[in-house]
């Protein structure tokens, strides 16, 4: 990707501030410039960014810096908290009408993904044990009705259509009657894509709304939308009063700042995100994760929190010293492993690291079980063996294998990997004086 991560930039800014217990306005301004750029690069609307930055400034100036965190991380933390708040701090679910059928209306610009989303939504609602009906109200775009019919047949949900010669308002009205007669408890109306400034077509939506009285009007927004997202969202909201937003195409590499813009102008919750073209790729929206994504930094915050909870700073410093002096042994290794384990499942931790993503993780495939095996092997060693791995000979290896219930090969592999790791550390500590070397644990 083209941009450096925000956390890196902030770390750069705050490097010279190390040791300061308090952030001055100037420090904060410099840091916030980076935040501002990050938000703009993520396509958050300029005006939204401006107000947001002012808000952050108020909070960040004079704020005490937590001892265990660098000031940079502290600012990120504030930014992320505010972002999450702006995004809506809780997840917002779809509501159902007490008098069925519950009617949902899907609206949005052309190509935002209304039809695909309608299909995905129908599939999920069907899974809940309901009986949804899809309604084809896009009479304008060629083959739009056919598209919904295909989507409908894939998820095995019936599609109500009256061809493209009828008025969408009439179709919607007839569909509701049809739903009642056929005991459909959910009706999803797929409308044609339209520009928010197309008055005639916007009026059509309003008429449909007046006639069918939908439980929710969902605005479907392409996550890649730029600055114009505010105009689109504000127009649809003013005209129709939307109830929620579906953010589509989030499986791309966009940072999705549009989410923030839309939320800021409409104050309506984002209810779902589209993460692929398959019908099961519609997922609930997590405000905090979106905040991190917009900032381009992974879910560092949860990681920081977890680390703070479970990491003993003193022990970590001791370890660092040991590594430098090449005294790192199986004892330390075990301890390190247990500390990490305290923070939660490894897969989850890896996912929070910026730069890591599921695709890459797919290749790594950290196996929790394997970790447990490693632990068992080390625990089957005597203290003496752990401190001085060189004494582990063939007979000791056999004993360790028997004690841990693992194969001899596995014990061999672990010892070999441990040696390699030590060698690597040696190189790194020699190479990067003062710089923190990156080293790999054998199980990663």
């Amino acid at each position, binding site marked *: 990707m083209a941009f450096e991560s925000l956390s890196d930039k902030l770390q750069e800014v705050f490097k010279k501030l190390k040791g300061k217990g308090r952030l001055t306005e100037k420090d904060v301004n410099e840091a916030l410039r980076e935040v501002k750029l990050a938000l703009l690069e993520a396509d958050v609307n300029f005006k939204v960014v401006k107000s947001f930055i002012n808000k952050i400034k108020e909070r960040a100036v004079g704020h005490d810096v937590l001892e265990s965190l660098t000031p940079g991380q502290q600012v990120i933390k504030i930014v992320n908290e505010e972002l999450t708040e702006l995004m809506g701090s809780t997840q917002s679910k779809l509501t159902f009408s007490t008098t069925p059928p519950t009617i949902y209306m899907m609206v949005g610009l052309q190509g935002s993904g209304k039809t695909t989303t309608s299909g995905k939504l129908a599939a999920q609602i069907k899974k809940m044990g309901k009986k949804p009906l899809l309604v084809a109200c896009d009479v304008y775009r060629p*083959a739009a009705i056919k598209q919904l019919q295909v989507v409908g047949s894939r998820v095995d949900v019936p599609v109500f259509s009256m061809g493209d010669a009828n008025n969408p308002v009439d179709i919607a009205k007839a569909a509701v009657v049809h739903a009642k007669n056929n005991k459909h408890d959910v009706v999803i109306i797929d409308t044609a894509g339209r520009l928010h400034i197309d008055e005639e077509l916007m009026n059509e939506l309003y008429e449909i709304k007046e006639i069918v009285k939908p439980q929710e009007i969902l605005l479907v927004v392409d996550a890649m939308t730029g600055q114009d997202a505010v105009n689109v969202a504000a127009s649809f909201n003013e005209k129709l009063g939307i109830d929620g937003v579906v953010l589509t195409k989030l499986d791309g590499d966009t940072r999705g700042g549009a989410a923030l813009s839309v939320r*800021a*102008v409409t104050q309506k919750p984002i209810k779902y995100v589209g993460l692929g073209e398959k019908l099961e790729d519609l997922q609930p929206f997590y405000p905090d994760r979106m905040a991190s994504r917009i900032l381009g*930094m992974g879910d560092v915050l949860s990681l920081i929190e977890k680390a703070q909870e479970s990491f003993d700073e003193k022990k970590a410093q001791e370890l660092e010293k040991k590594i430098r002096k090449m005294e790192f042994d199986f004892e330390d290794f075990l301890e390190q492993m247990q500390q990490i384990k305290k923070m939660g499942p490894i897969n989850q931790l890896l996912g929070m690291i910026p*730069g890591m993503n599921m695709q890459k993780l797919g290749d790594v495939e950290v196996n929790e079980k394997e970790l447990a095996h490693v632990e068992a092997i080390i625990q089957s060693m005597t203290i003496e063996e752990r401190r001085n791995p060189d004494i582990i000979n063939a007979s000791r290896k056999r004993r360790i294998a028997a004690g841990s219930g693992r194969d001899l090969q596995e014990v061999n592999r672990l010892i070999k990997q441990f040696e390699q790791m030590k060698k690597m550390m040696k190189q790194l500590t020699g190479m990067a004086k003062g710089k*923190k070397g990156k080293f790999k644990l054998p199980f990663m």
Partner: protein
Amino acid sequence: MSLFNKWFNKDKDKLNQEELTQEELMQEESNVEQEEQEESEEVKELLELEFEEQEQVEEQEETEEVEEVVEEEKALSSEKNGFFSKLVKGLTKTRNNIMDGIDNVLKSFTKIDEELYEELEEALIMADIGVDATLKIMDGLREKVKEKKITDPAELKKLLVEEITEILNKGNRELNISEGPAVILVIGVNGVGKTTTIGKLAHVIKKDNKKVLLAAADTFRAAAIEQLEIWGNRTGVDVIRHQENADPGAVIFDAIQAAKARKTDVLICDTAGRLHNKKNLMEELRKIFKIISREYPEARKEVLLVLDATTGQNALQQVKLFKEVTDISGIILTKLDGTAKGGIIIAINSEMDIPIKYIGVGEGIEDLRPFNPKEFAEALFADEE
């Protein structure tokens, strides 16, 4: 330094969204099931009501509700003098003001100062030009102002338009299809308007007395083939098609054979929308491109990337990654009939020399226009009601 701090040094975005969701989804479902059970009892009673009666009741309720809502809104607006309401107000104003263009900004200034530059910068960013390109343009502008000793703010706009026109004035904007057979491959992410653009493009080329053939190689999206066929009918152009989910490469292969046999002048190939970060789909596109090069070496080739004017900074990424698998020869910018300015093409052209060839300004068959850099630059700052 502890381990986790080391991890922080790794950068870049992308987060792991998959974790948890499964679990929580299931939780959500079970919640809903509970709700549903509670509902179903009420439902039974209500189902007995007749439709018309219900409608009347609902109508009454609605009017009452509307009144309530209005009151609520009033209460809300007075209550919230905070961040949100300011934001909302600010934004509505933005729509009316900033969209009015830079003219107003310029009029309100009597001399060229930092504040004016900042206002201009803001307008450029609001047009999706992006931070980097905006700063580049502003630097160029400042230099010119110094060089030419300009003091009148009104002159600035002319300079700005010139600056942007220059950036956008790249390469040959004509389609390279004048002589001999030609193939046009149309690519892009989902929902940018590829198929619609092809329909319009076929119309434009056919008007030029050329024999056109369409290849329906979007075999993935539901009813994409039918959509192209309808455009084929509208423009009176044949469409080569296979079944849904067929191999797009095979469709292209057949279309090329058909184009040769029928002595077609221009073959236009539709492809499935694909997000540029999907490895497999991009490889598929590379294969399609290879098939065209191998099977139709004598044909002139155009690879047109379709971009949605509403798209923000991600469009840059789209161009870069699509360029890795095909030789993009031009860009078509669609959906310029909305309020989006499509400024991202300026960012694209300030980094890459890919000519913008056409713009889409509506869903009608005539709504494809040749791209004119100067007009585009002027429209960026044009007055709109």
